[in-house]
């Protein structure tokens, strides 16, 4: 949004609000307007009171002694309880939005972003990779899985009113549904070293046909599933983890997204985090019926991007079809 002087040349415009280009952006803005309104009203009241009292009760003679007023319990209760009730509305509204944004819709398409000093490396299930550029279609929920190769970064798109820290050693996710084609800032918002302010890029929101067009160009290295499959062979995973029969390690078909029985009696959902941990720290959770200390750790051997490819590959095995016809995850939405 731009102030009423929108007719001025672009260099003289003074923006007051960032562009609003996602479904979240508007809902956050409404809450922000509400907060701002309360702030303005309260500030005006306090300023006015101070100003009026200062004028009206100014000291008129040096020896003046005003009559004491000790206080009023009723007033004290009123001005603690009423503001708190107002604040509870902030809390409620903010928490609702926060939780509504917590988990992506089931049909969200996947994008993977890896933060690295000082760039964003983006990859798509279809195999495209780019640096500091993110292309997404308009009107389709997009889930971004975030990983970091070094320090904490933060994936921040002001036009979407969204931000999530990217903490090394784990996966974080965020999702959005862009509403307006255009180019928007992508910032790193968590201080990450020398070129922190250079760790910026652009989010390009495109219409569906444009996006399909863009997807069609590129992906020379094959889809992420294919890239993951390649790594699966390269690192020798395949010697123990067979697809359709029992090896030294658990069979991987149908694992992703299912609940796994562990040897300590607990069960766990096989999600990105679990597969990541199983690759990097295999002893942490042992599937029932298998022994610990069999699989070596791959910590430090596979890049974050490679890990994501492996996960996408294992995810593709969740669908119990013969290999080859597997749809890349994230593309289901299109079918």
């Amino acid at each position, binding site marked *: 949004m731009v102030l009423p002087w929108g007719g001025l040349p672009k260099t003289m415009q003074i923006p007051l609000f960032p562009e609003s280009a996602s479904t979240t952006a508007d809902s956050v803005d409404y809450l922000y307007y509400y907060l701002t309104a309360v702030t303005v009203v309260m500030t005006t009241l306090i300023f006015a009171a101070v100003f009026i009292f200062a004028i009206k009760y100014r000291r008129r003679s040096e020896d003046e002694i005003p009559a004491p007023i000790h206080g009023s319990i009723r007033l004290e209760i009123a001005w603690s309880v009423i503001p708190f009730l107002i604040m509870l509305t902030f809390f409620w509204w903010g928490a609702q939005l926060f939780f509504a944004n917590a988990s992506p819709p089931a049909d969200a398409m996947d994008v993977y972003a890896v933060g690295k000093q000082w760039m964003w490396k983006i990859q798509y299930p279809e195999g495209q990779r780019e640096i500091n550029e993110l292309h997404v279609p308009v009107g389709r929920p997009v889930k971004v899985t975030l990983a970091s190769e070094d320090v904490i970064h933060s994936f921040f798109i002001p036009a979407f009113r969204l931000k999530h820290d990217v903490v090394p050693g784990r996966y974080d996710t965020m999702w959005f549904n862009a509403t307006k084609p255009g180019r928007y800032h992508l910032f790193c918002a968590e201080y990450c070293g020398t070129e922190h302010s250079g760790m910026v890029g652009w989010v390009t929101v495109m219409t569906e046909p444009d996006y399909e067009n863009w997807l069609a160009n590129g992906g020379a290295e094959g889809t992420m599933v294919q890239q993951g499959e390649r790594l699966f062979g390269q690192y020798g995973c395949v010697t123990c983890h067979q697809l359709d029969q029992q090896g030294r390690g658990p069979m991987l078909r149908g694992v992703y997204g299912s609940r796994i029985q562990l040897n300590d009696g607990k069960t766990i959902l096989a999600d990105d985090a679990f597969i990541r941990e199983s690759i*990097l720290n*295999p*002893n*942490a959770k042992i599937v029932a019926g298998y022994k*610990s*200390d069999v699989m*070596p*750790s791959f*910590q430090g051997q596979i890049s974050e991007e490679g890990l994501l490819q492996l996960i996408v590959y294992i995810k593709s095995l969740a669908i119990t079809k013969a290999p080859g016809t597997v749809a890349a995850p994230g593309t289901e939405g299109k079918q």
Partner: protein
Amino acid sequence: MAEPHGAVAEHNPNLRHHFDSMEQQFDSATLGMWVFLLTEIMFFGGMFCAYMIYRSMYPAAFASTSQHMNPLWGATNTAVLIVSSLSMALAVRAAHLGQQKALQILLLITIFFGLCFLGVKAIEYHEHWVDNKVPLIGGHWDYSNTPEFPNQAQYARQAQILFCFYFFMTGFHAVHMIVGVGLMLTIFAMAHKGKFNSSYFTPVEISGLYWHFVDIVWIFLFPLLYLIGHTKNLI
């Protein structure tokens, strides 16, 4: 240096200028020590917090690494500290009652057991050194040949975290013990010179509080560091 006006008639030589009475001075000193112990609680609390999180993250590694600590030494040291606490408590009691001879003997006993504790701790540290279990010295840390750690760099790292906590926590505790022994020596010297009587024994009282606090920390460190999971090999 200006003397305070309106000085108390019978001025106790141990009363400092800015206090009105011996009782006020004593109460201030003890309260001061308690507030100091409050900060000490939070100091160790920070370590316990980090310890708690990593223990819950890596329970298996912590449990098996703990086997490298010798719980017998730990238990011995607990018993030693408890004896020293007893003698300290009795020393404070003797100070209250003005029994100067008993005070000095009990302080010596306390110092002796404090030194015993530090001696045992030194033996333990030396054993870890010989076993190459000291994580801060690069290159000594290698689990590849120990049977309970197969060739797992990851596991070794988690084990290393426990050893870091072990050295960090027991190290800080040992520093407190050394300070405590120093304090006790000072108090002993003061007692020997006859500085204390039944109306002035503040330093004995507050050093006693400190000594007991250090004991309490150890009471928690012992099960947390030596007895993780359950002890398999009891020597």
